[in-house]
């Protein structure tokens, strides 16, 4: 990308130097961020020995789809995929309902006890029972090793509530509610018929944040799930990418070599397969993510 500076104003020498440095640095950062990701893409299509030998830099070498074929044979990846989609869809729905509802209620200045309720939420940003007391609570509620534990108990997000509340406070004029009330419109009716249609932006923000968080997290699954057939994708990935216990320690030397190379190839491919949905999705919804941070920033 050419560093075209469109400003027509006469520039001082210092500013010209500044611009050059700015664009050189930004291009470097650009490459630094993008190249590792690009490398994974080309490595996933390349002969693993060429990757190991340092011959893959700009384009795939010894083009192969073996890594992707290997993924097709791993049924646990697809089970994980299915579970993650299920958890993400349902979890996002629950999270939206819980947090948006609470945020709207807390945004209303005529809610008696508003300050107290807000305190209840904010305290949880600084205090929590900690891992073990929470773990024991989940067991007491018989939620351990159930799919519900991935969706319900941890769906409240104080941060999301604060962001959504700020949005409602700043974007829904109070007069609207006064008018609606005079017309005999109850709170719930008012919320669904008038507030929600005006709040598409914040719904998108909270929904996307929740969905991405759900898709990417592994902690709750690690702690609260026992059966592999309930594992979300990220936990399966962890086994493949990080704890991958080399199960092919037997067999002849040559067979083992092939298996080893295949496993490293498959790891590149599995990164692509698991990250692709978010990466495809992301550029289109990026503006909503930005908006969310900015709404949140208003309150600090």
């Amino acid at each position, binding site marked *: *990308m050419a*560093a075209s500076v*469109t400003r027509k104003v006469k520039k001082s020498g*210092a500013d010209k130097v*500044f611009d050059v440095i*700015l664009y050189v640095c*930004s291009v470097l*950062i650009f490459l630094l*961020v993008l190249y*590792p990701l690009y*490398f*994974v893409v080309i490595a996933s299509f390349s002969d693993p020995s060429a990757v*190991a030998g*340092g011959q893959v830099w700009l384009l795939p070498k010894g083009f192969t789809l073996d890594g992707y074929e290997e993924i097709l044979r791993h049924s646990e990846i697809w089970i994980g995929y299915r579970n993650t989609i299920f958890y993400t869809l349902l979890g996002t729905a629950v999270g939206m309902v*819980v947090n948006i*509802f*609470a945020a*709207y*209620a*807390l945004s*209303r200045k*005529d*809610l*008696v006890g508003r300050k107290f*309720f807000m305190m*209840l*939420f904010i305290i*949880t940003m*600084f*205090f*929590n*029972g*900690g*891992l*073990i*007391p929470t773990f024991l*609570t989940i067991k007491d509620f018989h939620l351990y090793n159930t799919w519900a534990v991935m969706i*319900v*108990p941890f769906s*409240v997000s104080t941060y999301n509530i604060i962001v959504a509340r700020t949005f409602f406070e700043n974007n829904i004029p109070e007069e609207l509610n006064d008018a609606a009330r005079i017309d005999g419109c109850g*709170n*719930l009716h008012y919320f669904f018929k008038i507030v929600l249609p005006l709040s598409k932006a914040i719904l998108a923000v909270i929904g996307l944040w929740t969905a*991405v968080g759900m898709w990417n*997290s*592994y902690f709750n699954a690690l702690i609260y799930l026992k059966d592999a057939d309930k594992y979300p994708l990220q*936990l399966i*990935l*962890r086994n493949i*990418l990080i704890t991958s216990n080399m199960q092919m320690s037997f067999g002849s030397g040559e067979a083992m070599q092939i298996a080893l190379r295949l496993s*490293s190839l498959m790891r590149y491919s599995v*990164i692509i397969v*698991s*990250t692709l949905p*978010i990466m495809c999705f992301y550029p289109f919804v990026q503006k909503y993510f*930005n908006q969310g*941070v*900015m709404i*949140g*920033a208003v309150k*600090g």
Partner: protein
Amino acid sequence: MKRLKGRDENQAGLWLRIRRNWGLYLMLLPALVLLLCFTYRPMYGVLIAFKEYKASNGILGSAWADPWFKYFKKFFDSFQFGTTIRNTLVITLYGLLVFPVPVILALGINQMRDGRYRKVFQTVTYMPHFISTVVIVGLITLLLSPGSGVFGAICNLLGFEAPNLMGSAGAFKHLYVWTDVWQHAGWDSIIYIAALSGVDPSLYEAATVDGATNLQKIRHVDIPMLLPTAVIMLIMRMGNLMSLGFEKVYLMQNDLNLSSSEVISTYVYKIGVINTQYSYSAAINLFSTIVNFVLLILVNKISKRLSENSLW
């Protein structure tokens, strides 16, 4: 407060105001119930840190530890005490040192005049933020593997043997912090870009008239504008000094780097979930929460005195 003041012409009692808004309470209910069950109830469960917790006896039924601070003392006396605290502090403080990176990034992005270039640059630098921790750590492991990664290949090209960075205790903190910068600096800059977009354009115009260079505008207009946001962000980070996130550290941990990668949260997990020493684990956890809270108050107070920026 018996009588309601203010412009609300409905001077009826509190009860009427509550009843009129029953719909709002209904909306608040789900979040409140979940909060009470899964956040506040565990807070009461912290009691087990002072007890000899047995699942069969429940929280109240279990006997008190003797003395009550038995498990805290056990932690203070254990050889893991120094290690976990030191590792946690080293990594979080190191993380604070790179705190200016997103600020600088935001200042740079704010100077980009070409709208399309700026947009592409932002899209790309935000992108890694959306990749999961598992994949990021998998990526690091793959790329840095001395035998088959790109790092090994570069080292070979330069003519020396690649060190096993993932298995090196000394490299752990650098790897942890800089990969975090790689992943999140772009995203973290958004909040500063937002603050900069609030700068009154007439300030820049005035500066231009006065013959200020870009660098001088950054120094005298942009940076003062960012300071309050930066201070708030810093306070928030300080309040989490002891609660270094579990997810990434745990994934990056292996037997070779354990001496510098065992932090409080991973230790709590191992003692509690893996070794099922519930009371001991809860005590360690509680200790770090308290330290965090004290730090938060302290930093907030200092900041209030120095710069009038504070959380409350």
